[in-house]
């Protein structure tokens, strides 16, 4: 088992491992390998392998995807693998991110090499242990499916484990050849399915501690307002109510029961200070963003002289896009359980960011790190939202004050009111064609809040603001990319696929409009723009072929295509759409997707389910989602006013995996960005409609016809 001393001792050690190109079987570990098997793995006497996984399970299947890599190298039966979440400790930091954090579609990419080495090292130690016991050279032993065997002898890994642990950690291990893989590239059943189907999986909201108190927080109607005065006289009449007090984000109402806390809050009278945002309803916000586009921003990229070219050509188009704030809508609203005591603190939370949680607990409690334990539960959806740990901070403040374990629950309305949306944005695009219909100039200017700055990493050009545009693969001789920072006190955060959610929409719809202007086929035009980028071209070619591009749609009336590169992966999608001209309702029947994440797909079915998931979420945003604002603050506070896609609206999704050489890409996010522009492009070619605003609400579509 892991001791706390071990954890602390290992803090800060570098990985120091180099994986050589294929063909080399031996891997040299550095003098200080991070691989301390006992911190990651243990094998019970009755031969169960318990692994600690340092990434959060939020639906993407990461417990399965990461542990199968270890089980493969170790050669261990999958049905005897048990996964637990690793506590927040330096040793579990993802060295490539510098934080214990799940995000950016990086889990398998970042952990793959390490986990293979871990599995191989454990196997080596098991073999060494058997070799010493039987006095047989290691080379003659076989380690297969949890057992070491030689001649007529056979012993389980579990029986060897204790002795194996006392052996030195090997400095050289042999990794399997791909032909020897038992799980990698093939797949295994998801390790979390059973408990999720039985209702036994423990999410943040499910944790129960003895003598636990329930808390809800009353928040300001509008961002930026602070508590002015509190009248809790009526609230305190409620049975079960324990306390009411002000915390950093609002007013905490605490009770012996959850219903008591909720009832108490209903009776609360809070006066708030004036918010600088008062009066900012949808209309005023839209105008604000459009006005910001007129300001001078920071140039993120400049090739040639697009302005000059655009001034001197007739074959050009321009467009102004306005895209809304989006809410993550995790099915589990923010909730966690924390217990702050004098001398220690325990946190059970559904977070994507363990390091940030630990730091937050440190700053609230003033305790040293080794007195703080952070345990990650299952996440009822994450999508980036749960890498923000403000809700844990609130629970810590409340528990510290009450000196009791606290379960903090957000209602759905609290969740929306807490903010941390995908930012709203306005984009101005201009583009020009030459006489042969080639794209020669692209001018792009976006006004958008700086997501990375909200996350504490400010920079001159916010990476999220221009991602997918500034680094696009399209080869256009004259390019201008400009970023205008919008500074409103509406909190924004990472929303699945981040800046690519809006930039893929504006760029990809604009490419089709340029194709339309030049009377070019959008597939052919893209292949021309990407002529030096094989991976990009390939996914477009594959999706066009699989979808029957150029033929009649199978289920809908019109087809649209979009391509986008994000998080290391290339994705192209074709959608089949039909439009009810009487109602303006759009039906998306079929989404065909080609995805290239590189040469290796660890678990193909997990990739497929992530693509299905990203497509549905992307389509939901396309057709339905927008956080609306009234003069008094956000007004889409629940699923009645912030509807998301239902089964009846879900298209059939077909996934085609394209393999190529090159670095491994991500899986969780890259399939989301192309959906919205593909649908818009189908509407352009099929119905002559140009979409500059999302969502594609039926009444808006009708007015465009």
């Amino acid at each position, binding site marked *: 088992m892991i001791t706390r001393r071990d954890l602390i001792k290992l803090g800060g050690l570098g990985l120091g491992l180099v994986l050589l190109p294929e063909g080399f079987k031996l891997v040299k570990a550095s003098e200080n390998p991070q691989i301390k098997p006992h911190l990651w793995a243990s094998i019970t006497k009755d031969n169960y392998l318990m692994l600690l996984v340092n990434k959060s399970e*939020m*639906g993407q*299947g990461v417990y399965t995807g990461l542990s199968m890599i270890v089980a493969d190298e170790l050669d261990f039966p999958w049905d005897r693998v048990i996964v637990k979440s690793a506590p927040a400790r330096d040793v579990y930091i993802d060295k490539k991110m510098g934080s214990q954090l799940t995000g950016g579609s990086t889990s398998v990419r970042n952990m793959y090499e390490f986990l293979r080495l871990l599995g191989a090292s454990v196997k080596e130690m098991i073999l060494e242990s058997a070799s010493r016991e039987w006095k047989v050279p290691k080379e003659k032993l076989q380690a297969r499916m949890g057992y070491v065997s030689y001649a007529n002898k056979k012993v389980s890994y579990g029986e060897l484990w204790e002795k194996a642990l006392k052996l030195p950690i090997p400095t050289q291990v042999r990794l399997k050849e791909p032909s020897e893989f038992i799980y990698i590239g093939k797949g295994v*059943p*998801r390790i*979390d*399915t*059973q408990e*999720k*189907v*039985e*209702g*036994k*999986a*423990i*999410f943040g*909201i*499910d944790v*129960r501690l003895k003598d636990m108190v*329930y808390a809800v927080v009353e928040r300001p109607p509008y961002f930026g307002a602070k508590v002015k005065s509190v009248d809790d006289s009526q609230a305190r009449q409620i*049975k079960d109510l324990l306390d009411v007090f002000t915390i950093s984000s609002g007013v905490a109402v605490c009770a012996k*029961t*959850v*219903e008591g806390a909720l009832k108490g809050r209903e009776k609360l009278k809070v006066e708030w200070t004036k918010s600088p945002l008062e009066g900012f309803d949808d209309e005023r916000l839209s105008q604000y963003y459009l006005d910001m586009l007129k300001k001078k921003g920071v140039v993120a990229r400049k090739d040639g002289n697009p302005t000059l070219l655009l001034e001197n050509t007739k074959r050009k188009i321009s467009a102004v896009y306005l895209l809304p704030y989006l809410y993550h*809508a*995790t*099915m*589990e*609203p923010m909730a966690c359980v924390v217990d702050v005591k004098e001398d220690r603190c325990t946190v059970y939370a559904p977070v994507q960011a363990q390091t940030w949680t630990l730091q937050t607990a440190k700053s609230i409690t003033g305790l040293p790190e080794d007195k703080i334990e952070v345990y990650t539960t*299952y*996440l*009822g*959806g*994450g*999508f980036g939202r749960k890498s923000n740990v403000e809700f844990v901070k609130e629970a810590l403040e409340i528990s510290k004050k009450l000196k009791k374990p606290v379960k903090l*629950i957000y*209602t*759905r*309305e609290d969740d929306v009111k807490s903010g941390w949306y995908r930012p709203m944005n306005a984009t101005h695009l201009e583009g020009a064609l030459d006489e042969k219909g080639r794209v020669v100039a692209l001018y792009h200017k976006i006004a958008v809040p700086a997501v990375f700055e909200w996350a504490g990493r400010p920079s001159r050009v916010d990476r999220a603001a221009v991602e997918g545009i500034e680094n696009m693969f399209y080869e256009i001789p004259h390019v201008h990319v400009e970023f205008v920072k919008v500074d409103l006190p509406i909190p924004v955060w990472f929303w699945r696929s981040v800046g690519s959610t809006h930039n893929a929409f504006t760029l990809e719809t604009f490419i089709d409009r340029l194709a339309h202007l030049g009377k070019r086929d959008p597939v052919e035009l893209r292949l021309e723009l990407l002529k030096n980028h094989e991976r990009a071209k390939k996914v477009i070619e594959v999706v066009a072929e699989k979808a029957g591009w150029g033929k009649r749609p199978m289920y809908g009336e019109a087809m649209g295509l979009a391509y986008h590169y994000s998080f290391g992966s290339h994705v192209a999608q074709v959608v089949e759409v039909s439009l009810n001209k009487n109602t303006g309702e759009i039906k998306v029947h079929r989404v065909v997707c080609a995805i290239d994440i590189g040469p290796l797909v660890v678990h193909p*079915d997990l990739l497929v*389910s992530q693509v*299905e*998931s*990203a*497509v*549905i*979420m992307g389509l*939901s945003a396309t057709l339905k989602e927008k956080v609306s604002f009234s003069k008094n603050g956000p007004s889409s506070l*629940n*699923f*009645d006013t912030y509807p*998301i*896609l*239902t*089964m*009846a*609206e*879900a298209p*059939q*999704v077909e996934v085609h995996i394209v393999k190529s050489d090159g670095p491994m890409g991500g899986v969780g996010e890259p399939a989301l960005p192309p959906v919205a522009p593909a649908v818009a492009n189908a509407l352009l070619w099929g119905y002559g409609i140009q979409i500059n605003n999302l969502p594609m609400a039926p009444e808006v579509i009708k007015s465009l016809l």
Partner: protein
Amino acid sequence: MVELYLNGRHYKVDVEEDTPLLWVIREHIGLTGTKFGCGKGICGACTVLVEENPTRSCITPVGSVKGKRIITIEGIPSYHPVKRAWIELDVPQCGYCQPGQIVEAYALLNKNPRASKEEIISVMSSHLCRCGTYGRILKAIQRAQKLMEVKA
């Protein structure tokens, strides 16, 4: 004190009659498979069966179901074709909405084992899944129908 008959067991719970059934099941009794999602009966995560009818427990006062037969996700046997099909197809992603989905599907197939694809979609569209597992839920229900036929 409210008396409840839940998953074949009797419980006495010290709550007000207007307390939503959801909180009684989850926080007082401790069966946390039934989830809180919206508090307005929209998302379906809190669905339980009351006398075999799918019921949104977040908007059901506990006083209205006294003595009635209530079944939660924990009360559906593991060997039931619906749960087996869900496992076979690895339906859940984050898994949070799945208990509600499974309870709804279980009730649907009990009432109408031969429900058509359209009927399934119509019933299941009252449940939200942010991970977008809709395609697999549909397939799992159709698979459960096959498993039930074999049994019958």
